[in-house]
């Protein structure tokens, strides 16, 4: 297993090189540009067999991906922010046609105002389109998640597209040590791509994407709902197999010092790394703090979250995007709804933070934990939804 120094973007591009997809259709956008730029270098150097389609927009990129996948190809792409939004007309078509496209998504704030830095508003805006969504804490996870996503999305009981995300600049442009797989290991791990209802199968011709009105549209939506349900088990099985082969463990969620924790932080992506440092410090001082990392946002691991937080007294739910519903961020909204029937549940506070790349520091997380300590002691939440770190 080679040890490499890679940025998040390089790690994703490296995974793509080893996957050697049949088709990549992409359009550059900061901070995801490098993923497909580096990959196009691999194409030019003859290191992959991929047909690289340099399209004129992300709308075309996703359209070409759907077409190529429907023809029976293993297909990948990458994007960010407005690029993901420009794809969004086609994203639900990819899932409805059950095409296992894998997208390297680098989280970046949505315009406007125009901003190139990290928040989760882009990925969250497409959360209801039938795509599996996996968040990465660092470059290593970005690499591992992309490889696992190929397995997950191509599983016959799933066959949904999926995106693995990194946090723009924080992960995408920071160099870290990663443990990669050998090229032939990746090849063996993934196996052959299996075609299903290929439009190019002349022995069994099919029509894809026909008009579907009151009589059948509803029936055609149900399999997507079921596939998303099935994907939970598949994600866990794939993770288990990955851990057995390569030693790195993953789940739908990850608990860090949570088993006996009284106060907890729930977060997605790179913030989890910062939280671990604060938790270690707090633990040394005897404070029972813990972390619940949400790795998979779609499918939403509701039961797992409820169970993991059942012993916690107060929890800070960290949302790196707001959704203008006056109900806090998307993670809070879904997590709070999942808690409704739970007998044992913590007091919840939603922290909407880090919009447009505003830094979240160790001190910030210390402050959030201090507030949780107070809430746990008093049994009261000071303010249900806080926009943390914004100037008034």
């Amino acid at each position, binding site marked *: 297993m080679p040890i490499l120094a890679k940025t998040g973007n390089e790690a994703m591009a490296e995974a793509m090189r080893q996957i050697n997809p049949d088709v990549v259709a992409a359009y550059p956008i900061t901070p995801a540009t490098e993923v497909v730029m580096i990959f196009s270098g691999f194409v030019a150097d003859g290191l992959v067999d991929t047909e690289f389609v340099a399209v004129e927009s992300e709308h075309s990129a996703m359209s070409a991906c759907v077409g190529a996948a429907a023809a029976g190809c293993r297909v990948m792409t990458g994007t960010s922010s407005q690029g993901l939004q420009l794809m969004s007309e086609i994203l639900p078509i990819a899932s409805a*046609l059950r095409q296992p496209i894998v997208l390297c998504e680098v989280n970046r704030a949505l315009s406007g105002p125009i901003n190139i830095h990290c928040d989760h508003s882009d990925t969250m805006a497409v959360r209801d389109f039938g795509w599996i969504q996996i968040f990465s804490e660092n470059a290593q996870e970005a690499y591992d998640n992309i490889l696992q996503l190929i397995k997950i999305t191509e599983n016959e009981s799933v*066959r949904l597209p999926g995106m693995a995300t990194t946090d723009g600049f924080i992960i995408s442009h920071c160099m870290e040590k990663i443990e990669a797989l050998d090229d032939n290991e990746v090849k063996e791990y993934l196996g052959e791509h299996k075609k299903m209802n290929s439009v190019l199968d002349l022995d069994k011709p*099919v029509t*894809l994407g026909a008009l579907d009105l009151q009589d*059948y549209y509803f029936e*055609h939506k*149900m399999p997507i709902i079921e596939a998303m349900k099935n994907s939970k088990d598949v994600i866990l099985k794939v993770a288990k197999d990955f851990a057995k082969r390569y030693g790195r463990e993953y789940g739908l969620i990850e608990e860090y010092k949570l088993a006996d924790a009284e106060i907890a932080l729930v977060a997605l992506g790179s913030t989890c790394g910062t939280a671990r440092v604060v938790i270690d410090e707090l633990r040394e001082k005897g404070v029972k703090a813990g972390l619940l990392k949400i790795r998979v946002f779609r499918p939403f691991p509701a039961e797992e979250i409820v169970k993991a937080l059942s012993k916690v007294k107060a929890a800070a739910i960290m949302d790196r995007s707001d959704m203008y519903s006056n109900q806090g961020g998307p993670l809070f909204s879904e997590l709070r709804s999942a808690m409704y029937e739970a007998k044992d549940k913590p007091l919840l506070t939603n922290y909407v933070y880090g919009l447009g790349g505003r830094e979240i520091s160790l001190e910030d997380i210390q402050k959030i934990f201090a507030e949780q300590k107070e809430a746990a002691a008093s049994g009261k939440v000071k303010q249900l939804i806080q926009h943390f770190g914004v100037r008034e």
Partner: protein
Amino acid sequence: MKKNMGYKELMHGDALPAGTAAEFQTGDWRSERPVFHKDKCINCYFCWIYCPDSAIILDEEKKVVGIDYRYCKGCGICNTECPTKPDKRAITMEPERK
């Protein structure tokens, strides 16, 4: 194809067996009908190529011989594209209800 299938009976991934449009006769949508005049036809196939409903009938010798009114929805594209106009129109449009 079976009617009113449940979602568990459907093909995977919003796919349909090919050629199901044959079961869906669009001819009753028509307010105008194309009428074919064999004597003026030069067999150029323009109508056959352009017809969006594959409603132009060819005989065994691949000659245009008429319109399949079960599927022709009266769009008039064949009439517009037929190069025999203006005087010797091989396809004319006539109202369905006079």
